[in-house]
């Protein structure tokens, strides 16, 4: 028991160190090695954070879905913990994406925000999972909160493709695609150094994400352990 927790701790520590190294490496690469973008210049370097952060967010929401499903099926609190932790991180990373994007958008588009389909979609994701967290926090009984949230975690995830579709059609089927579409970014003539930078920082973000996830999950576990202990002592 003792040893196993120790080893877990050590593993987690190593994960953290790895994440740190990878992120730093990614930063160096994207800031120093990778050449500035032909059209956008230095600003474009934000992409090396932008894309990884949103992709980690997607991953996070998928984990929420898995955790919720497992919880409803097995009624195991650990799954609920996972879903909860993932939801919080997902919101965090989505918010990051939006912030980075806005910072990027100001110089390139001249605006902080535009109603481009993809941006809108991101914002909606943020709202859905913010609602998820609100729902959790506003139901007294833990078990009830857990299963209610699980339902939402499933509904929300299943709804994402539909939302995605509708939002994109709304922009394409309806009015002519605006010039501001992010995917208009010069994807064709990507410099190999750009790709490597992107991959490295992506790996960094993944490691960071899982490190944070493990921490957040641990916090949840500790809460339960504290409760168990206090129950044993009978306060």
């Amino acid at each position, binding site marked *: 028991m003792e040893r196993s927790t120790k080893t877990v701790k050590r593993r987690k520590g190593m994960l953290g160190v790895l994440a740190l190294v990878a992120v730093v490496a990614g930063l160096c690469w994207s800031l120093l090695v990778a050449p500035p973008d032909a059209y956008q210049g230095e600003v474009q370097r934000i992409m090396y954070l932008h894309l990884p952060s949103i992709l980690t967010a997607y991953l996070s929401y998928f984990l929420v879905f898995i955790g919720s499903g497992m919880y409803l099926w097995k009624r195991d609190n650990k799954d609920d913990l996972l879903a909860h932790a993932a939801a919080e991180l997902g919101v965090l990373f989505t918010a990051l994406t939006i912030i980075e994007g806005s910072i990027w958008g100001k110089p390139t588009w001249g605006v902080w925000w535009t109603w481009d389909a993809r941006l809108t979609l991101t914002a909606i994701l943020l709202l859905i999972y913010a609602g998820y967290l*609100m729902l959790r926090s*506003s139901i007294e009984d833990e078990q009830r909160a857990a*299963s*209610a949230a699980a339902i939402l975690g499933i509904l929300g995830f299943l709804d994402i493709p539909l*939302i995605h579709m509708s939002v994109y059609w709304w922009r394409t*089927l309806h009015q002519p695609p605006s010039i501001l579409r992010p995917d208009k970014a010069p994807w064709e003539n990507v410099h190999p150094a750009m790709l490597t930078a992107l991959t490295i920082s992506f790996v960094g973000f993944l490691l960071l994400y899982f490190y944070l996830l493990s921490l957040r999950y641990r916090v949840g576990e500790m809460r339960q352990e504290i409760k168990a202990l206090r129950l044993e002592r009978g306060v």
Partner: protein
Amino acid sequence: MTLLRQAYLLLRKDLLLEWRRRDSLLTMFFFGTLLLFVFHFAFDMPPDKVVELAPALLWLAFLFTGTLGLAQLFQAERDNHCLDALLLSPLDRGALFLAKSAFNLILMLLVESVVIPLFWILFNLGSWNLLPQLFLVTLLGTLGFCVLGTITAAITLRARARELLLPLVLFPLMIPVILATIRCMEMVLRTGSFGDAIAWLRLLIGFDVIFLTIGVLIFDWVIES
């Protein structure tokens, strides 16, 4: 079989309560109409622009009316812990889901069948001949709203800031329906027929089917929670 029998019992009970004192129906109807006026005042539209905004206004009116209706959906079960009485009984949760969605649907359709023509008159839009198509779109949209709404109403049932939380959870999930119905209506109004609106219609139908099935499947857990 028992599923349907029980659903019927519950639905009859709700309809009876509603029939007794037509609160919800009347208030929803008046509120829907009222909203049209509020919107009208809010952005004072030149008559020609109304036609473009018509679907948005209509559907927003339905959305908010419906949401307030949903806040009422489980009221009778909330007083005196009647929900516990139902959970205690040999009631299939799926039946509860079907009954409540059906009840909600009936209310909404009644309201809409009055508000839409009224809207046409108030903002004297010509194209009466298009009403059938529009009703179809509305029907599909409303179905999706009621199904998803019932689920969200159920999961927010025991939450604290219920009235606020319900729409907060519901609206983002509803966005496909909102977009689909409104765009669909717009196209029908503009072109006078479903043309490329078909794509939206498909989306709507898909949405309805998906969430109806999900609802029946997971409502056990929904209501236990």
